[in-house]
């Protein structure tokens, strides 16, 4: 089951993030894919805000992983682009069972390290502000979330 949505602005993307946030559970994993500037960090900002995290979410490109412990659930925000698929030794897997929500930008570059059950979100830029967003749930829990959100 793949759900397709269209976002016409940043606030549409934020709204989607907030709707998914309201279905959150410990050890949730969300994988974001799409070109530079498609809205991956915008999505994460919206999600974090809904989690009640007051700290501003900035790009994790430089440090790969940023942790925000102060929301309703802890948030682990990753950008694995620069890893070029080389994840061993970083301990990324440990985050999937730490009780928080993990959001991974450029997740398809480390696909074999991702948990089987997860929500894949693919952003496609079709115009300056317009994005086609594909939700692809893996596992029953995530299918339910998609059903609730769409």
């Amino acid at each position, binding site marked *: 089951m793949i759900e397709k949505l269209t976002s016409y602005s940043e606030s549409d993307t934020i709204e989607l993030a907030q709707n998914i946030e309201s279905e959150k559970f410990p050890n949730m994993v969300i994988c974001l894919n799409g070109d530079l500037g498609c809205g991956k*960090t915008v999505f994460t900002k919206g999600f974090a805000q809904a989690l009640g995290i007051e700290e501003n979410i900035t790009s994790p490109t430089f440090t790969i992983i940023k942790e925000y412990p102060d929301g309703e659930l802890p948030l682990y925000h990753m950008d694995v682009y620069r890893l070029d698929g080389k994840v061993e030794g*970083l301990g990324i897997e440990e985050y999937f069972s730490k009780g928080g929500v993990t959001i991974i930008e450029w997740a398809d570059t480390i696909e074999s390290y991702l948990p089987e059950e997860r929500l894949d979100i693919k952003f496609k830029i079709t115009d300056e502000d317009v994005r086609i967003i594909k939700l692809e749930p893996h596992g029953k829990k995530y299918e339910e979330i998609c059903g609730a959100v769409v």
Partner: protein
Amino acid sequence: MMKDIYILGIESSCDETSCSIVKNGCEEIATVISSQIDIHKNFGGVVPEIASRQHVKNITMVIEDCLQQANMKIEDVDAIAVTYGPGLIGSLLIGLEAAKTLAYIYNKPLIPVHHIAGHIYANNLVKKMEFPLLALVVSGGHTELVYMKEDLSFEILGGTLDDAVGECYDKVARVVGIPYPGGPSIDKLAAIGKKSYKLPLPLDDNSYNFSFSGLKSAVINLAHNEEQRGNELNKEDLAASFQNVVVEIIGKKVEKAMEEKGIKYFVTAGGVAANKRLRERLSNICEEKNIDYCFPAIRYCTDNAAMIAAAGYYYFLKNRTSGFIINAKSSEVLK
């Protein structure tokens, strides 16, 4: 006469492993930097896993080399200063563990230094900083305006809401197909280009915050539109247009902070402080306003341990040492 204080500094927060000995927080005795930038070039960025492996390989050599150049023994230094964050966790750990071990074996105070405090204190190696001052920290991971009333008093006036300025340079470089690291190349291209492309001034408001994500998107859209129209993208002109907007907005916010905070001294720090056009603009502003200023030598703009040892001296004077329980922190606010 006060006794001279020698601090041994260690830095390994990103892609350089470095060790340095600095006297009295301002006089560099010896610095060794083992840059990994050539390795990372093949990967289009800093690869943390490689970074930490290289750090392990380099760290003892770098420390030994530094002591040899300084003609000193660890017994001769007064304290060990080390970057504890922010940075890549695996890389930070290598430097921190080395520092802890040395401090333990030789019974020296251990001084954890914030990476950004280090960048600011790189200026102290050029000439002693005066207060109150304004510091502009611009690098691959940071874009911050910091007000300092006195030594080690950091008030963050504002920072980036999304991408750091250096990161934006790297991403824009990637869009136009320039290899890593993109910043210096964009600076060079910009020098020969014309600012003929129109780009928006990002977050042109009354705050001290910055936002470079929108500018990144604007460059992507521009490249995309030119491609669709069948026009060839002029890289030099795009670099010049992009750099112009970046320098413009940074200059504007720096100027505002100078006016509102009534500062005596201005310093820059971080890798992007090596940018020629930015230096030019900032020095013009300071001269207009009659504010004394300092740009660190280019080799102190990028990561190095001399800046950590320089900052470490002031932590030492204030007795801000730490036990061995100190942990590396990947994201840590400057305080």
